């Protein structure tokens, strides 16, 4: 085999989307949807949320700002971002609490393009949620699927990743922080944590490309507050500034 031939073959292998070198982003342009946060887009392979691949968001409970993080992408999906090119469906699978419609509408989500799948509580609820998510991705009908699952094992995540691969949709799986140490098939994993002054800390713990150790601090749209500091609480004379004062500490990765 000649040297040039071998080089060509190597280039072919490297051009495959599922092969990437540790030091750089994959050469092929992934079909990514900009996340709406420039700092995050700069670090995401392809420059945004990947379509046709599962993205894991690791966050404990609800309320840190995970929806605000996804909002710009969801707005773009439903065609409410001013460009009006998509008009696709979004699906919420097993959300942690019932969604409050006025808030979603006020945030610019087209409710006519949003469906909620909330399996009835019971023994099968967890597996039903994963099943629904897999069906949704496999059907390729919705353009974004957000699923909450605490009990997804590696096999279930792999199934979701395979289903997402054929769909071209945004696929987000929200899992508790304790799963950070598990190996999963999702090519992109983000860990979310609270940060001072209403920001959100995002740490990319897995991506196709060079590892990123430093967390990103994103400014999210938050409810309008009266004062940031020294707000005279109606209850306590002295405000509790537990979060504002404390610098965020990252638990060591297992």
């Amino acid at each position, binding site marked *: 085999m000649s040297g040039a031939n071998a080089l060509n073959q190597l280039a072919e292998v490297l051009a495959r989307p599922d092969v990437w070198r540790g030091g750089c982003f994959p050469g092929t342009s992934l079909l990514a949807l900009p996340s709406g946060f420039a700092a995050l887009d700069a670090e995401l392979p392809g420059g945004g949320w990947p379509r046709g691949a599962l993205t894991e968001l690791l966050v*404990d*409970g*609800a*309320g*840190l*700002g*995970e*929806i*605000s993080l996804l909002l710009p992408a969801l707005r773009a999906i439903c065609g409410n971002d001013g460009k009006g090119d998509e*008009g696709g*469906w979004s699906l919420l699978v097993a959300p*942690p*609490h*019932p*969604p*409050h*419609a*006025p*808030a*979603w*509408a*006020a*945030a*610019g989500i087209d*409710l*006519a*393009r*949003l*469906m*909620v*799948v*909330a*399996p*009835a509580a019971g023994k099968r609820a967890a597996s*039903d949620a994963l*099943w629904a998510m897999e*069906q949704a991705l496999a*059907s*390729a*009908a*919705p353009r974004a699927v957000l699923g909450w699952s605490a009990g997804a094992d590696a096999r279930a995540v792999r199934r979701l990743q395979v289903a997402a691969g054929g769909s071209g949709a945004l696929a987000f799986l929200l899992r508790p922080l304790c799963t950070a140490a598990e190996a999963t098939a999702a090519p992109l994993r983000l860990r979310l*944590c*609270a*940060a001072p002054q*209403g920001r959100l800390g995002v740490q990319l713990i897995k991506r196709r490309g060079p590892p990123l150790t430093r967390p990103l601090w994103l400014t999210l749209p*938050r*409810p*309008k*507050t*009266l004062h940031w500091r020294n*707000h005279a*609480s*109606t*209850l*306590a*004379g002295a405000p*509790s*500034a*537990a*979060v504002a004062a404390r610098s965020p500490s990252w638990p060591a990765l297992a």
Partner: protein
Amino acid sequence: MAAHGQVLACDAAADAAGVAPGMSLAAARAMAPTLNVVARDVARETAALSALACWAGSFTPRISLVPPRQDEAASALLLEIGTCLRLFGGIERITTAVSAGVAAQGYSLRYAVAPSAQGALWLAQVMEATVYSNATALSAQLATLPVAALDLPPQAAVRLAQFGVRTLADARRLPTAALARRIGQDAVGMMARAFGELPDPRLPFVFPAQFCADLELPAPVDNAAALLFAARRLKAALAGWLAARQSGVSECILHLHHHQQPATALPLRFASATRDAARFERVLRERLERLALTAPVDALRLEATGIEPLPGHSGSLFEASHGTHGMAALLERLRARLGETSVHGLACRAEHRPERATATIAVAQGGNGTPGRAAPRPFWLLARPQALRERGGRLYPPRCKDPLQLLAGPERIESGWWQEGEMDGASLGDVRRDYFVALAADGRWLWIYRDNRLPGGWFLHGLFS
């Protein structure tokens, strides 16, 4: 199968024993003592033929039945396909599709394609799968048919045999007027219509206004797979009926009849009207797999209860968009397994009380505008408010050591006095609350309220996210 003491049709085993159609029943029993004789049920045959005609509606709207005759085992369907050839892409494709469809429903079929209806009937009686698209070739072929094999009136057949007429060509060589006097005008008319010399008007099959089809199962069935297979016949009939009416079904009911027990009704709902057999089968499979049968099923009835007009849709030139159509199919599949109420859309309601401001609707539709509200609203609203602990003038969320920090508020929400005293599950009653935005020590943004009239007074109601 037998009627009036005569064998009408027999299977391969009986045939091997020497039993033949036309034989008397006594003779047949003598040849094969273990013969299993089934009495003919003309009413059921006619019903089956009607169901098949419904199914054939997916090929052509002009169908005519030739009902089963007393002495003839087979009955026939006439489909006028001359006007539909272009749609289906030629005679060959349409005959393949019809044969496959009939076979899938468990019937056996002989067919012929000819320019005249009577000619096609006769060809099908004598030969297998003949296709003639021009009248000259048809005449030449018809002329060779043996008269004895055709369903001419019995008197006429006997007379013709006595004349020494063997084939249709022999018969047509005789003067028509004289032949009509001897064998009857009917037989001569049939010949003329077969050769296309006389017009052949047929009574069109009238598609029933309501679809309701029955299927008796040959043996009681107690598993989903067999039921699914049996329901395929009904499904095919429904699809044809819908195609002929340019409609789709949005809801139908499959009744499972049990022996000496009340029937089980299995409603099937579709997210949008459809006549797609594959979608129908997916929903039916999900429902059947989750159904616990109380008793074996011995008959099925499919009743279409929700029919909507379904115009054809144009294909997209550049790319296949899976938009709404694929979404409807997905939703009905999710609903079939998870239940109707588990899959829903959202809508805003003009209502101040947060619990009442969200409407869950079966089909997501364009919202009535975004509420122009400056006050913050949380993405998640807890199903029921959680009480907050108050200690030393500070608020503590459940299972949390650090106090809350109030960031914004209060926003007074006071509404629903007209429902005062109706604090039950359905209505919320009178509400007087002061809402605050609070930040928990773990960084979660909470929506809490104070209700002076309740003990404790402070509740967690929503989560900004």
